[in-house]
């Protein structure tokens, strides 16, 4: 039984589908008047956030609380961490507090691996985003969102009617085409999504300027393109996921990755015109926070195709499933 969720690669096909199925059950409970479940009563979940991320932290916090776990929020800002306390000492402190699970967000790639493998904590470790490495629960919520829209009964490209009306339970993403656009080089969301969506059978295409793709991407289970118009027109994607691009990356100091916001937006932004290239059923996704006018136009962000707000809500259900499976069930998978 796996004790940690460090990478999307930790989940094999069966485990990934199972997490999504449990997330569906969790989502169903969230439509009830009383949302709270007693499942993790008496267990302690620590949110260990070394980076600002109100969105992800509150999502994990809500997930843990709805499972009746005790939640300790430990954020680096204003804590002993900013005074030079090491990750190790912080982990030992949390261990002494009796953390059953540590949800960690850290600016250093691999920090969750160190936490899980260096023997500093006995609890389960959940990677809530590490540097430019991975963000596996984001990929799970994205896969959950895609599955709901495109693999539930009655969905536009859905197949079969095995499960109940509107249900996607038990299904994967086999044959779906997902196009991910933007700063892949610095994106933990892209890495986790490529791995997880591939595991679930989807066909992934990454679109970015060559400067924003890592050297060594050749081994990834996806296709790579530099031509967004071509990818949208000829690729006929079922889902288009736009990644956040940081304006600071234009300058020499920031790496000189692209010449200007205007040029980036012109070549790689999801404009109203590009929106019209998409098949009717295609959904538009973004992990947030968005740079409206840079990687995504208001037309795209606010269109009926957009699942951006829904993704946030799905995040709570998916994180409930992950915490539940790690602490009270069996996540399965490879780890």
């Amino acid at each position, binding site marked *: 039984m796996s004790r940690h969720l460090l990478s999307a690669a930790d989940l094999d096909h069966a485990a990934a589908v199972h997490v999504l199925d449990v997330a569906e059950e969790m989502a169903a409970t969230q439509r009830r008047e009383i949302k709270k479940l007693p499942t993790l009563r008496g267990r302690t979940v620590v949110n260990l956030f070394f980076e600002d991320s109100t969105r992800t932290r509150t999502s994990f916090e809500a997930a843990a609380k709805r499972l009746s776990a005790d939640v300790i929020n430990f954020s680096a800002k204003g804590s002993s961490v900013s005074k030079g306390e*090491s*990750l*190790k000492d912080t982990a030992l402190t949390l261990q002494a507090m009796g953390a059953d699970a540590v949800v960690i967000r*850290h*600016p*250093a*790639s*691999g*920090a969750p*691996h*160190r936490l899980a*493998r*260096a023997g500093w904590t006995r609890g389960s470790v959940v990677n809530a985003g*590490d*540097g*430019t*490495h*991975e963000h596996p629960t984001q990929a799970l919520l994205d896969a959950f969102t895609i599955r709901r829209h495109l693999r539930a009964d009655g969905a536009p490209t859905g197949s079969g009617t095995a499960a109940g009306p509107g249900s996607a339970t038990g299904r994967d993403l086999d044959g779906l085409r997902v196009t991910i656009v933007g700063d892949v080089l610095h994106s*933990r969301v892209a*890495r986790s999504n490529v791995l997880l969506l591939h595991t679930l059978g989807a066909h992934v295409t990454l679109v970015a300027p060559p400067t924003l793709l*890592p*050297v*060594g*991407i*050749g*081994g*990834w289970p996806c296709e790579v393109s530099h031509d967004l118009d071509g990818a949208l027109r000829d690729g006929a994607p079922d889902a288009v996921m736009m990644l956040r691009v940081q304006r600071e990356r234009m300058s020499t100091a920031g790496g000189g990755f692209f010449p200007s916001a205007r040029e980036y937006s012109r070549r790689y932004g999801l404009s109203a015109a590009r929106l019209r290239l998409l098949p009717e059923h295609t959904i538009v996704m973004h992990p947030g926070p968005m740079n409206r006018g840079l990687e995504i136009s208001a037309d795209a962000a606010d269109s009926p195709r957009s699942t951006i707000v829904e993704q946030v809500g799905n995040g709570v259900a998916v994180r409930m499933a992950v915490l539940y499976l790690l602490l009270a069930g069996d996540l399965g998978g490879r780890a």
Partner: protein
Amino acid sequence: MSTTTPAPGGTGPAVLVRGARILGGEAADLLLSGGRIADVGPDLSGAPAARGAEVVDATGLVALPGLVDLHTHLREPGREDAETVESGTRAAARGGFTAVHAMANTDPVADTAGVVEQVRRLGEEAGWVDVHPVGAVTVGLAGQQLAELGAMADSAARVRVFSDDGKCVWDAVLMRRALEYVRAFDGVIAQHAQEPRLTEDAQMNEGEVSALLGLRGWPSVAEEAIIARDVLLASHVGSRLHVCHVSTKGSVEIIRWAKERGFPVTAEVTPHHLLLTDELVRDYDPVFKVNPPLRTQADVEALREGLADGTIDVVATDHAPHPAEDKDCEWAAAAMGMTGLETALSVVQHTMVETGLLDWAGVAQRMSTAPARIGRLEAQGRPLAAGEPANLVLLDPAARWTVDPAAMATAGRNSPFRGRELPGAVVATFLRGRATVRDGALVEPAGTAR
């Protein structure tokens, strides 16, 4: 044949080493007396000079000239929490070394005659191996202004190797001037080849593994571009260039190209770059974080081939001890570097001898003769012959041992070979005829050459 002139500092009782395979060849006896090899022969047990000598049974052991490291970080002064000259030279003796070059990136930096003389004196006080300080090329390793290279050369430390190791002398004009300037006293510039802009905040080799791990890539070209520039500069001004810790296939090819043209270039490779690859980074364990970074299997093979064919002249350890807290952390926060003095010979046996790429004479050339010549050390790296200084190591090539950092003499626990089984064990090390190591254990310092 025997000699009666004692080597400087060579005192102590005579030692008769019996049945050692010299450079892995035929077994012979070596008689050590007065700090020198007094005689070498098939059976010296009856020789008059051997009467009363302490006998060392070296049956099955290989005798090599004492190893010389061109690239050691002893950390003192300034980082005595990581290593001291005492602990680092004990590690060197245990690794079979009789001389080490102490890198300049101490605190204060070894960029003045005062600091290099201090390091020299600390080495003499320790007495385990000869310590030859490396002088910084630029003041404070800042890459702005030449340090007083001549003063360091003329000092009691007699510095001949100059390096900003840890930092690259990236300014082409400054590098040119340094190369030219040290010609006046037969010095050599040992360059840490790393283009700084291409490696800002770089964390590991740029390639498939870095792409997956989301760690900032450290491209091969950042090393190769500087080496290409520097070999051309060395040729242009006719000065000696030494390239530190070559780590890529492309670097080997550039150096091979330069040597084919007769450019005055030498190069070193570390034991860890001969064995380990960036695949080891996958778990983010900072014990594998090093500068230059671990590369790919193709690079490892090119480095072995380059060392075998003489493109790379020297194995140098780049022994870089760090305190535990500098490695017991997340990857990005960890210090770069690995210990190496006590594993170097074993790793070379494993990667070069057992693969058939080098014989023991080749190992002696690359770990003793060549580094001594580059560092202009007259009494090191000499043949195992009568009249030569009695600096030698006896190793048991049939031994197998499992690397345990806690059992090492170095203060650093950051060995990337931890837990690995390696071949070859140093049984004895002699510095000027005195055993610093016997039966694999430290004995006592041999003292200084004065």
